Every structure is written in structure tokens, then in C-alpha cells.
């Protein structure tokens, strides 16, 4: 049934029509502006995931298909043998006694997929545990016990401060000094890094989860935790020697795996009520109790250009029921920035190692 024309509606004069059209236009414009504001397009200073990734790209260049940070690495696979000891703290299926499949990635920090292995004294280990019920636990760990900075803004500012000088292609030491002068929270990290040597092996390193999380037990009780991987029976990490080439870590890994699996114990440290959960620059006191949750057993490795870790975004907020994020501000920032990096690299297609045809094993001296 068609609408009946409204007989009581008096015709509008031209001025009224203009006013009403103007009001409609204003509503549409206001809505569009609100959308743009929320989307961060009106505020060039807002720290967004894309700006974090832009800063990483500015410093390291764009290497199509590669991660924007921890760009150089190698895929590994194996399983986690849970001891069952952490199951009382977390109801996650991964901590029940038994094995869980893992896909991991050992890597170097930085955005350059061709960086020499001795260019940084830090190595990283990312893991994805997949339980038979489909739940996943993804975690990215580093070989230093603390993160230099506590907030995403400070991390971004560090990237800006570390922007390579166009002449020297290295960060300006003055600017870095000024940056760390303004960030006393980095002291624990700087103390560690002063004595840290680029290890000659991924296998002999401990890897720290850095951020605090909560384990949630079957009664819903939340326990503040931090975790780390400690290598089993490995000699103290040797420093890389001058005879090592730029890619010694992957060769070392393959050599070790040829003789048998590599094992790390997953130690879970329990925080106390007043231990801060929002500051990755500080460790908890040494006397906090720790639980040996089980053993990560790595049995194989594969190139990151084709291996099973290539398409995995090791977002540390992908957690099973039984693990929850803490109030550490780095965690949502990692999730958001990793997502931006993942979108960029997957839309570029698989990585093409442009160095593989050129000899990359020229002698490269460790510091």
C-alpha cells in the first residue's frame, strides 16, 4: 500500500529547505569526521600500530615478505612434554601431563633479514603450542632477562632515536645516549647488554617471556607468572668467534639437530601479590618460587622462507583458556603491531631471499 501524502504538512519555503539540507549534510560530515578521528587519521602524533611498523621499516628498510622485526630467523618444530606440574596453576590443556605439538622460530631482533648473526647479542625464541582441542598458546621470548623499555611509546621513541644516520648508516651515538639518558628504566637492560656476547648457538641460550601474564586455575584463581626456557645440559653459551660467518646460527642449529633433539625446560615463576605485572624492565626478586612445567623438545628445523613458522604471527596475546594477559602495556602493543606487520608481509607474498644467490658467508667478525 503506497504512503498517503501528508495533508497537514505545509510546504517548505526555500530557506527551510536549505536549512534542513544543511542539517543533513552537517550530520553526515560530523559522522565522517568522528570515524576519521577514531581511526587516527586526524592526529598524526597518535601512536598507532602502523606508525610503530613504519618506524621499524624506516630503520631497516622494507624487505618484502619478511617480518618487520626479528626478520632473520629459522623455523623449528617439535613438541612440549608437559610435566603436569603447572596444571594446578593453569587449567590450560597444554599443562596437563602429555605432549603438545609446537612450531617455533629462532631469530635475531631487528628488521634486516640479512643481518650478520653477530650484529646483536640477543636471540629470540617464539613458540606456538597447539592443543588437540584447537586452542593455541603463542609466545615470543628473548635471550635477555628484561626488556629495555616499559611502554609502547618509549619503544617507538627508541626506534626514532635509532634511525640510522644517512652518512654512517648507523644510529647516531649522541642521540642514543640522550635517549637512554631520558629512560632510566633501561638501566637493568643496559647493564645486561654491556657484558652480553653474541652467542655462537641458539641452543645454549635461555629465553625469557619478559612480560608478566596470569595463569588461571580450574577454580578461576589468577596467579601472576613469568616464564622462561632454560636449555637442558647445554654448556654456557660460547661467544661467536672471528672465524664464524654471517649465518653461523642456522648452520650450528642444523648440526646440533643432526645429532639429536634440543631441549629446554619451561620454568614458570610465580609472582607475589605486590610484584608488578606491568613493567617488563624489571625482574621479580630471585627468591620467587618457580615450577618446571615441562620440556620443549625441538627435533627439526627448516628455512623460514618455506618452513611451518613462516605464516605464523607469534602474537603473545593468543592464549588458551588458563592463561591471560596482564596489565603490561607492551602486550596489547605487541599484538597490534605484529598484526600490522603480518598484514603487510602476507600481502607482499612469500619472502624472496635476495641474498641467497650472492655469497653471504664472507668472513664476518664477531665483536
Amino acid at each position, binding site marked *: 500500500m503506497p504512503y498517503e501524502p501528508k495533508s497537514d504538512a505545509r510546504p517548505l519555503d526555500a530557506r527551510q529547505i536549505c536549512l534542513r539540507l544543511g542539517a543533513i549534510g552537517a550530520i*553526515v560530515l560530523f559522522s565522517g569526521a*568522528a570515524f576519521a578521528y577514531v581511526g*587516527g587519521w586526524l592526529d598524526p602524533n597518535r601512536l598507532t600500530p602502523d606508525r*610503530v611498523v613504519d618506524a621499524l621499516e624506516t630503520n631497516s628498510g622494507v624487505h618484502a615478505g619478511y617480518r618487520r622485526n626479528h626478520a632473520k630467523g629459522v623455523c623449528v618444530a617439535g613438541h612440549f612434554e608437559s610435566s603436569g606440574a603447572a596444571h594446578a596453576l593453569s587449567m590450560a590443556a597444554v599443562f596437563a601431563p602429555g605432549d603438545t605439538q609446537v612450531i617455533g622460530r629462532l631469530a635475531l631482533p631487528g628488521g634486516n633479514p640479512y643481518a650478520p648473526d653477530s650484529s646483536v647479542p640477543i636471540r629470540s625464541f617464539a613458540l606456538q603450542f597447539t592443543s588437540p582441542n584447537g*586452542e593455541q598458546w603463542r609466545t615470543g621470548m628473548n635471550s635477555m632477562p628484561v626488556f629495555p623499555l616499559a611502554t609502547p611509546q618509549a619503544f617507538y621513541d627508541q626506534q626514532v632515536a635509532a634511525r640510522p644516520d644517512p652518512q654512517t648508516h648507523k644510529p647516531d651515538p649522541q642521540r642514543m645516549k640522550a635517549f637512554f639518558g631520558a629512560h632510566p628504566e633501561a638501566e637493568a637492560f643496559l647493564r645486561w647488554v654491556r657484558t652480553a656476547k653474541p652467542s655462537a648457538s641458539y641452543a645454549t641460550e635461555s629465553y625469557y617471556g619478559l612480560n608478566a601474564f596470569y595463569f588461571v586455575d580450574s577454580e578461576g584463581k589468577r596467579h601472576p607468572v613469568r616464564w622462561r626456557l632454560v636449555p637442558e645440559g647445554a654448556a654456557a653459551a660460547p661467544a661467536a668467534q672471528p672465524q664464524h660467518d654471517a649465518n653461523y646460527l642456522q648452520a650450528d642449529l642444523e648440526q646440533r639437530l643432526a645429532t639429536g633433539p634440543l631441549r629446554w625446560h619451561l620454568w614458570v615463576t610465580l609472582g607475589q601479590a605486590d610484584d608488578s605485572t606491568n613493567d617488563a624492565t624489571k625482574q621479580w626478586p630471585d627468591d620467587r618460587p618457580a615450577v618446571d612445567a615441562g620440556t620443549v623438545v625441538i627435533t627439526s628445523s627448516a628455512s623460514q622462507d618455506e618452513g611451518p613458522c613462516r*605464516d605464523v604471527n607469534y602474537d603473545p*596475546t*593468543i592464549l588458551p583458556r588458563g592463561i591471560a*594477559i596482564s596489565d603490561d602495556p607492551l602486550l596489547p602493543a605487541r599484538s597490534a603491531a605484529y598484526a600490522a606487520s603480518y598484514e603487510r608481509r602476507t600481502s607482499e607474498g612469500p619472502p624472496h631471499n635476495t641474498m641467497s644467490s650472492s655469497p653471504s658467508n664472507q668472513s664476518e667478525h664477531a665483536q
Partner: protein
Amino acid sequence: MSLSAYSKASSPAHFSLFARTLHWLMAAGIIAMLFIGVGMVASVSERHQWLIQIHKPLGVALLVLVCLRLVRRLAGGVPTLPLDIPSWQRLAALGSHILLYVLMFAMPLIGWAMVSAGGYPVTVGSWQLPAIAPTNAALFAWLRGAHRYLAFLLFATVLLHLAAALFHGWIRRDGVLASMVRGR
């Protein structure tokens, strides 16, 4: 969707209370969803986490609602437009409504498929949904782009829909807006 949605056959005089409730629930949900989506991908703060925790269940709720709504529309029809509406506006109304329905289905399904293709577990609140697409990075990238640009298209279409509704209500005053606001 039936192309005869605007024919005189079987068209009711006004939208039922059920149809209006669905419309306004979804209007609020879709606008919230668009702002949540654009806000969460532009944030590195804890807002990023809790907005995602709203985005996924709200997306599933909107997918359920649009299924109900399509059934209601196909079964119950819609009031015809006033007879004096120019044919290009009639066509624009039909086209924009088809586009709105397509996007209301596409957005949650693409979001779900995108999470699946990225190899992520599809967790919605405390539920785990099945993957609806194979784990494939290229597919993920394509769906991720589609989710973004179709969201922009949906927002633009919603604004056009809003402007047209206000044009009917404030300038033509022909009862079209009233049919969804008051049911007559």
C-alpha cells in the same frame, strides 16, 4: 534478495514491531562495530585488546541478526515507496538496500574467514568456532584487505542511507522515515 521488494504485491502498510526492532538493533550494532573496528586497529593500548573482545562476539551477533532479518524481509516484504518518487531514486533505494544486505552478510563472514586463514584459533568470548577457510597467508592478506575496504564501503552506505532517510523525514515528509521510526 527479491527484486520485487518494492512492488505493490504483498507489501505491508508499515514495518512490524519485529522488523523495526531488528532494524534498530542492527543499526546500533553496525555503527558500534564500524567505530570499534577502525578504533582497535589504530590503537596500541589496552583498548586494542578489549575492543577485539567486543568486536568478535558482536560480529557473530550481527550475523545471526541479519539471517533473521533476511528471512523476515523475504517473508514479510517492505512498504512500497510513495508513488511520486522519481525512478532513479527508486533504483538508488533498491541498489543501496541490496548493497547493505550483501555487506551485512559479507563483513562478519569475511572477518571469520580472515581469522581462519591467518591460522588463528577462532575464539569468540569463551567459545571456539570452527575455521571456515583454509590456513593460507595469501588468502588471509586478501580477506584482511577486503574486511577493511568493505568496512569503509559499509560506512559510506550507512551514511547515504541515513542522509536519504532524513531527506524523506525532513524535506519530503512522505512517511518513509516514519515507517521505520513509528511503524506508520
